[in-house]
């Protein structure tokens, strides 16, 4: 069954009715956008439940279990609760900006859904610059949070805003580098093309086999991009209370909450597309519907890992986070990029290229962590000393 | 392609004019910088429009836009750094008061 057939039949129908071509296209676009929007929102509801369940299990709790079977209806109850609460706007706040921020926060992520290939060619907009599109709209998130932080007229919110810029902008570089490496290997920026390129070995020839270190780099940076523990410094309760969304309540807060989960899901989806074959799997090329299933299974496994990490690790200090990005991830990303470019230029047969890439990845990963990891940890240790052991005046 | 080329050009001209107006008349140096960014964007629109309508097979227009991007990025970085530096030494961000050219 080809999912494309639906779309084509629909277009044919509209054209038969006698609507001009341009309008058909427009209607089609709008409908596609609506479908994605609904999918995304439904997904988010489920994701909240999923993550809470995982976190509960990790922390030896049950998680939500009261409303509905296994607590499945819990998110709806939460949503209702948030809807009925009072939506506070601080007196001093910059109203338009304040109200616009959550909207942008959610919609920049929903726009990312447009380019994610759910199955072969089942993709909202099969554009040639998909990877760049991800980077571009991912970057909008920082703007939304800046707006929220600034417009709240709250000291902690503003501090949270600063951290947003520092963290998201910094970690965008490793994420971008990791994406570029994959682009280099696959030779296309089209996400569906990247997924198609991993069809070897009966749909198991995933790029993670050749680029394990790149995946590790992407994963770590994605944790930071998704503001997830151990990089959730934007909302570190112990330091800046709740960060940029401190003044938000009720439904406006719910939007940020929504954005947070959707963002994580999109990051997992991108990870799956770039490194784990996307919709690829045994038989996916023949039966596209299998692709959708494979894709969602993989994404949820990836999402589970995200949730697992979040529930397990404690938060980093901000200087550790920044130096880890600039002193470990960025140099490592550059080294990986260079190594992949060189290996590809050698023009070896595929198997040899992949083997060589794998070896190069492992070597670079080990070397980087050994050299730079030691360096940064030494650095933070000395800073520890200066921060917490001031020289006392001698009596 | 149903849109005529001149529409893009007029749009770019309007954007350019607005940006230039900002550059000419705003007091705040950061606002002036924003005006400059508007002007650069107007130029980019022009370049891309000319590429699409006049030489669609030769991508020099697009490549040039990328160079404009780099220049804009460098300009913003250095410009803002300069403003912070000026603000720190002169305690003002008013372009009218930054008139060392006169002396």
């Amino acid at each position, binding site marked *: 069954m080809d999912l494309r057939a639906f779309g084509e039949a629909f277009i044919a129908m509209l054209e038969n009715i006698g609507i001009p071509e341009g309008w058909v296209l427009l209607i089609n676009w709008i409908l596609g956008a609506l479908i994605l929007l609904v999918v995304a929102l439904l997904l988010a509801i489920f994701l909240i439940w999923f993550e809470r369940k995982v976190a509960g299990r990790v922390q030896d709790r049950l998680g939500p279990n009261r409303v509905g079977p296994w607590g499945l209806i819990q998110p709806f109850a939460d949503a209702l609760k948030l809807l009925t609460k009072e939506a506070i706007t601080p007196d001093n706040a910059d109203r338009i900006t304040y109200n616009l921020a959550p909207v942008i926060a959610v919609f920049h992520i929903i726009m990312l859904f447009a380019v994610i290939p759910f199955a072969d060619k089942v993709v909202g907009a099969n554009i040639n610059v998909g990877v760049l599109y991800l980077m571009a709209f991912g970057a909008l998130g920082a703007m939304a949070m800046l707006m929220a932080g600034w417009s709240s007229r709250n000291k902690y919110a503003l501090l949270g805003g600063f951290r947003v810029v520092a963290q998201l902008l910094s970690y965008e570089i490793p994420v971008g580098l990791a994406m570029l490496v994959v682009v280099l290997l696959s030779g296309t920026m089209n996400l569906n093309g990247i997924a198609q390129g991993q069809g070897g070995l009966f749909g198991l020839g995933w790029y993670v086999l050749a680029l394990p270190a790149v995946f590790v780099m992407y994963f770590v940076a994605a944790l930071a991009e998704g503001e997830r523990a151990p990089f959730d410094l934007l909302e570190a309760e112990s330091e800046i209370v709740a960060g940029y969304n401190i003044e938000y309540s009720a439904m406006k807060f719910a939007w940020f909450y929504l954005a947070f989960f959707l963002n994580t899901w999109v990051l997992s989806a991108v990870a799956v597309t770039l490194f784990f074959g996307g919709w690829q799997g045994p038989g996916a090329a023949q039966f596209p519907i299998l692709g959708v299933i494979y894709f969602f299974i993989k994404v949820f496994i990836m999402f589970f890992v995200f949730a697992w990490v979040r529930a397990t690790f404690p938060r980093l200090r901000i200087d550790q986070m920044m130096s880890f990005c600039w002193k470990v991830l960025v140099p490592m990303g550059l080294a990986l990029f260079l190594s992949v470019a060189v290996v590809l230029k050698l023009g070896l047969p595929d198997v040899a290229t992949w083997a060589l890439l794998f070896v190069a990845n492992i070597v670079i990963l080990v070397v980087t962590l050994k050299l730079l990891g030691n360096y940064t940890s030494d650095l933070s240790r000395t800073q520890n000393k200066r921060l917490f052991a001031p020289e006392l005046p001698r009596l | 392609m149903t849109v005529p080329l001149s529409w893009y050009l007029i749009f770019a001209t309007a954007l350019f004019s607005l940006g230039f107006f900002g*550059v*000419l008349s705003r007091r705040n140096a950061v606002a002036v910088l924003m005006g400059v960014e508007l002007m650069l964007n107007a130029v980019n629109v022009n370049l891309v429009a000319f590429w699409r309508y006049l030489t669609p097979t030769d991508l020099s227009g697009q490549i040039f836009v990328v160079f404009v991007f780099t220049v804009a990025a460098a300009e913003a970085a250095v410009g803002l750094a300069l403003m912070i530096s000026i603000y720190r030494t002169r305690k003002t961000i008013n*372009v*009218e008061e930054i*008139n*060392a*050219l*006169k002396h």
Partner: protein
Amino acid sequence: MSESIFNLTWLIPLPTALAFFAIILFANPKKRLSSKIAVGGVIIAWILSWAVAIMFFVNPEFTEQPFDLAVPWIPMGNIVFHMGVAVDAVTAGMLFMVGFVLTMIFIYSTGYMSFPGHLDPEKYPDAAKEGLDPRYSRFFAYISLFATGMLGLVVADNLLMLFIFWEIMGLCSYLLIGFWFDKSYPDPKQITPKAAGLKAFLTTRVGDVLFMMGLIFLFIHAGDLNFQNIFANQEFLHELSTTTVNLPFFGAVTWAGLISMLIFWGAIGKSAQFPLHVWLPDAMEGPTPVSALIHAATMVSAGVYLIVRMSPLFSAAAHGGSGVMMFVAFIGAFTALFAATIAVAQKDIKKVLAYSTISQLGYMFAALGIGAWVAAIIHLLIHAFFKSLLFMGSGSVIHGVHHGHEHAHAHGHGEGGHEEYFDPQDMFNMGGLLKRMPITGWTFIIGGASLSAFPLITAGFWSKDEILAHAWADGHMAVYWTLAAGAFLTAFYTFRQIFLTFFGSPRTEAAEHAPESVRSMTWPLVALAFFALFGGFVAVPVDFPVVGGLASDFLAKLMEMQGEFYGLHVAPARFDWTPALISMTLALSGIVVAWLVYGWKPLKAKQSDPLRRWLGPVYTVLENKYYFDELYYFIAVRPTLWLASFFYLFDRGVIDRIVNWVGAFNRWLARTLRRWIDEYIIDGAVNGVGLVTTWTGAVVRLIQTGQAQNYLLILLLSVVILLLLIPFGS
């Protein structure tokens, strides 16, 4: 694949250039590091140049369309001047030789540049403790720059780049000859390194100016200086050789003749041909690696290389009826014989080699003059190997004798008390060194045999024989006999040198205690000796009995194929027994005569040269190099000095007086006028101008607000006005 190696050609001069900058900027205080950087750079350059050269050798089809990679350099109106690199057979041959010789000499220099004897160790305690020259790093920087110049010259694809690298080499030559600029001699008439450097620089300048004029003329006519564009363009060359220009004194000459003559003068200067040969012997004041590198193997042969490059132009000029080829042949042959005679009477081990270099370069020019440019280039390559070997050997000998002298002196064997000046380069202070320095000795003998064209087993025989065979076959009897006489003398002075230096018994304490040189100096000697012996097999004529069948003569074939591309047709000289036997006989008899004079009964200490007795005044003339330095002093230097002092006197006596008088008059005038004009008219005018200026300024300053936005507004208004010109202006 092979093309892609040629794409690396432009990298060849780069490593040494980087080494130069690295040493100058960063590594200068660290002597060992500097030498390592320089050697590393030159080894990379060597590998690259051999890769390119060998790729060319194994693919002769590249001669049909030589590689050329150029990028736009100087746009001039409609013409865009390109710079780039080209590889053809000549370049490949030169790269093969230059890369290798450069590397050998660099390695040799690391050992040779120990603490020099003329410096006071107490003034340079650090350097003396290390045992290295105080300016060790600087030396390596200079020779790295020189290597850049030479490699760049070889790979350059146009005459302008060639000229630039040519001048870089000239500069390095100047710097390196005068490297020990603080050295002086007790004999005031002996030239110091500083003066020698100046002399070399100024003498070559004469040639270079003419060369540049030739370049300019060529550019005016061709609109381009790319070798392949100009020299493979037969129509253009033909046109150049048929259009004439009227010159004062010379009458009508063809442009081709004029240009090639001017350019040939550049080669005369660089390659030290008569009459601009005087600088090369004095250039021996530089450190010996420099003599080996610059003044034997590479830079001086650049002149020959230039003429080889220009051969299509020369032959076009000859076709157009110009005598420039004859002139080249004459200069070459004359220099070959003339320098050989001087070499016979020299006592300085390096001076002999210097004159022999001049003489051998003369052979090459003679070959070029008779159209045998293939023989010339092959002799150039082989000569570079054995002559750098000889120079490095002589450096090793000097080093050894110097150390022996210090050793003897330190042990109290010296003459005692206030010691007289000891010259470690004087061959009459040596003798019997073969036992003391076996590696140096045997490699020197191999080089010497090669230079004196010892038949059959040495490279020099084959390459020199090629030239002689061509001269004979083409009927240039005068050239042939001059060169043959030169060959006899060459063999004689070479073996005179060998017998004086290495055989017999030591004539001084120093020679008795001379140690063998360090390994970094002897290994390059061995490597070069290999080429001095076997390098000649690239030039064995195919129809030579027995040996001819073994060697393929591939280099000459390659060169001839390349010649076809440039429209040069060189018929390979048929092997002929007559000239071969004559030259063999002459070479062997030269060796025998040398043995009779110096080898049979070795000279005793303090015994003078037996030739002096037999030749009498002729020997004195030869010893004084035909008094050319004195002649030039009288006809060039002295008149210049006279003119200068005359002008000085004129300046003092006449001009200054007039100036003083005018000054006095002016003062008087001023004093008179001040009262009348100054106080009323001038002051009034000045004040008025001031007032007007103040007033104008007061008005205009309103525009200058110091605010960028105001200025921008004015800019906008100007743009609007300019835009209005579009619809309304025209």
